[in-house]
């Protein structure tokens, strides 16, 4: 799974896409690892832009949980944005809505994290 990324001031926006399940969740974790390290070093928050994620299984949800735990341990934060309806429903059913703050759009997530990040997003 290609993990597109962009930096807006103090927020890293990562955009996994396709399906996240048993077969590719370990690869996803490996791709995510350097970004988590970077977020700790540079004090960056992470926004997972899920607009391109079509489906997530329990194994994929576990990756999100592990990432959230690591972020919490290193005093950083991960939020979710732009979930497709199916993924949003799965989050709800698995009670992941209680684990992550989720926002309708990437800009909403950035605005909640810092005005500077939202301003950087607006500048494009």
């Amino acid at each position: 799974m290609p993990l597109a990324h962009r930096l807006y001031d103090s927020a890293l926006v990562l955009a996994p896409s396709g399906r996240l399940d048993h077969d590719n969740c370990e690869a996803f974790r490996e791709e995510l690892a350097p970004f988590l390290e970077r977020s700790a070093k540079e004090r960056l928050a992470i926004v997972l832009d899920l607009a391109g994620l079509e489906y997530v299984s329990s194994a994929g949800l576990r990756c999100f949980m592990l990432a959230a735990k690591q972020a919490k341990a290193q005093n950083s934060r991960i939020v979710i944005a732009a979930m497709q309806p199916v993924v949003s429903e799965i989050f709800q059913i698995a009670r992941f809505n209680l684990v992550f703050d989720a926002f309708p759009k990437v800009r909403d997530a950035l605005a909640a994290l810092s005005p500077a990040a939202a301003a950087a997003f607006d500048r494009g």
Partner: protein
Amino acid sequence: MRVRFWGTRGSIPVALTSADIRDKVAEALYRAQGRSFASVGEAYDYAVAHLDFSLTHTFGGHSPCVEIENGGDEYFVCDMGSGARPFGAHVLARQSGRPASVNVFMSHVHWDHIMGFPFFGPAYAAGTRIRIHGCHDTLEHAFRLQQAPPCFPVEFSQLAAQIEFVKLAPGRSHEVSGVQVTPAPQMHSGDSYGYRFEHGGKSFVYTTDSEHKLENRAQTDRFVRFFHGADVVVFDAMYSLADAISVKADWGHSSNIIGVELCQMARVKHLVLFHHEPAYDDATIESVLRETRRFEELTRGARALQISAAYDGLELDV
């Protein structure tokens, strides 16, 4: 086979409170606004047809006890939770004086799974034959211990029934009075075992108090083989997935999401959610059932998986 649920709650028995009943009645009356019923029967029909299960029923509060009827004279039952008390009354009534032969299969000996045994009527009837099957070395010790002073007035050795303990080897198929039974080891504090019953071309899996580690692919594959093609799987769906893999990781239980995924992989026909969280009220369990059905719909492959939530009193044809 026919499966009858005598106890479906996990960890500790619970009872409906007077506030629960009051709220159900008030809500039912509110929903029936503007209607009048000429008879109780008419009101009953309306309730069954138009009101939610959680308003007109309760999932019940007895801890695990699930009977399997195979059409023969002997009884088969999984676990001796508090549901064993009404199950025992059923056995005595049905036998009407004739001694019963009861085959018990124990998932493990945590208290919620053995606590009904001191109240299991047939254990006090001379002539009853009870064979308690399980894979734990501590099986007999646990049954004797819970009836030892100062915890219970009648010691195990005073029970009138003829009681034997039968150790089963996990992973192997055993023939017990015409039924094929295969135990499988499960992840739970002190270990637990699931059972697969096969009779008359049908298969039934009882798998409770079992945690599934998503990262353990070998374990997943083993359970997919254990469940494979089963007509009914009774599954420990006590927690949400988020709880099961974070704050309640290593507590030894699983979630509705994992139940659906394993049953889909194993091409199971019917998944029954079981070992309900004692803190959940009826409306919560009903909404978990609704969401689980929706999750199945969202993730459905070539064939649909039927999903139910077990309740005390539920009977299923397998």
